[in-house]
């Protein structure tokens, strides 16, 4: 999941969170999570002054964004003292899967389910 300015959204991206008017997380959502963005929908959101949205996966790369490999390397570093322990290794495995899926190139479709 990634928060990006509405300007950078493209047709086909999937909303990872409900969208609210004025970006405030209160009131009635104007567009539900899981919705696939279309050009006309993006225009409508723009008219409603929505500044940014959460989309599934990691479709927009900016300078300073870290790649999946970097993230997995950091994860290894954080777990280096506890890899011998079977319980803690369960948590490690869960995080590996989580990172792969949330950064995966499946467009985040599974995340939106």
């Amino acid at each position, binding site marked *: *999941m990634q*928060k990006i300015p509405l300007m950078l959204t493209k047709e086909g991206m999937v909303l990872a969170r409900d969208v609210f008017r004025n970006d405030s*997380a*209160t009131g009635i959502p104007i567009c539900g999570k899981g919705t696939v963005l279309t050009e006309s929908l993006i225009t409508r959101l723009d008219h409603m002054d929505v500044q940014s949205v*959460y989309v599934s996966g990691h479709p927009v790369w900016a300078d300073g964004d870290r790649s999946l490999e970097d993230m997995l390397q*950091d*994860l290894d*570093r*954080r*777990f*280096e*003292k*506890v890899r011998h*322990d079977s*319980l*803690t290794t*369960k*948590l*490690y495995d*869960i*995080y590996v899967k*989580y990172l792969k899926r*949330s950064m995966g190139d499946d467009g985040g479709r599974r995340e939106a389910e």
Partner: protein
Amino acid sequence: MDDEKRNELKKIIMDTKTLPTLPGVVNKLNTLSENDKSSVQEMAKIVSSDQALSARILRLANSPSYGFYRVSTISNAMILLGVNVVKSLALSSSIFEIMEKNSVGLWEHSLGVGVAANLIARKLGLPECEEISTAALLHDIGKVIISLKCSDAEREIHRVIREKRVYSWEAEREILATDHAEVGNWLAKSWFLPDKLSEPIAYHHDVTLSENHRIKTSVVHMADVIIKASGFGNSGDYFVPQIQKEAWNALKLDDQLMVEIVEELEDKLVEVKNFSLELQGSDATTG
């Protein structure tokens, strides 16, 4: 020798004259809450008379560590969070203020553990979720005290962590002959916090020492481990602690629950990050 050092340190740390000031309001609140006849409204009125304190309490009550948002009055906070929670937030608000300004990493770590503990407690359907969140918010308060009272030692501790690649409590024991969990417990005792708050603070590294609140302590232990696994915030060292089997069993955790907890937590942490950034942003503009 170590005992001497430890007692010496305890004296320095617990010197009330230089401890973060306890707002006078808190004493009044203590007296009132011991009296069965006093109402929530009365107590709320006392807290509301200190505006800066009220603002800080409301800010914490509205933090993502608690499930609800938009707690706008102190009496609401007391009803939703409980008098005990508001009391401990009043006590810790001055410490939180220091943390927000000087140690953003630790502040984010604490917020994150608060959120994770709340999530675990709700998922497991445990009673007193708010108390668990508060204990989690406060679990590393000993680190703030060490940094306030022994800033030279703190630098040494950070050096030892870097050079020897050890957990912060290991480095603290080497330098100070005590650790932040014990220091946090001293503080909790001197503030007369109930043991459902002090036990998780004192024993979040070893839940087997917790006698009366093993479940709450286990939640805070797990929350701490998961937040460090996530890499959220900065608690002083980046090493994930080992999950204690006793904590895992006490909470009857299983693989599926853990997958769900991680998934939901990561979703929430995006909000926590925004909350923390907003606070820093507002501090930058107001002060």
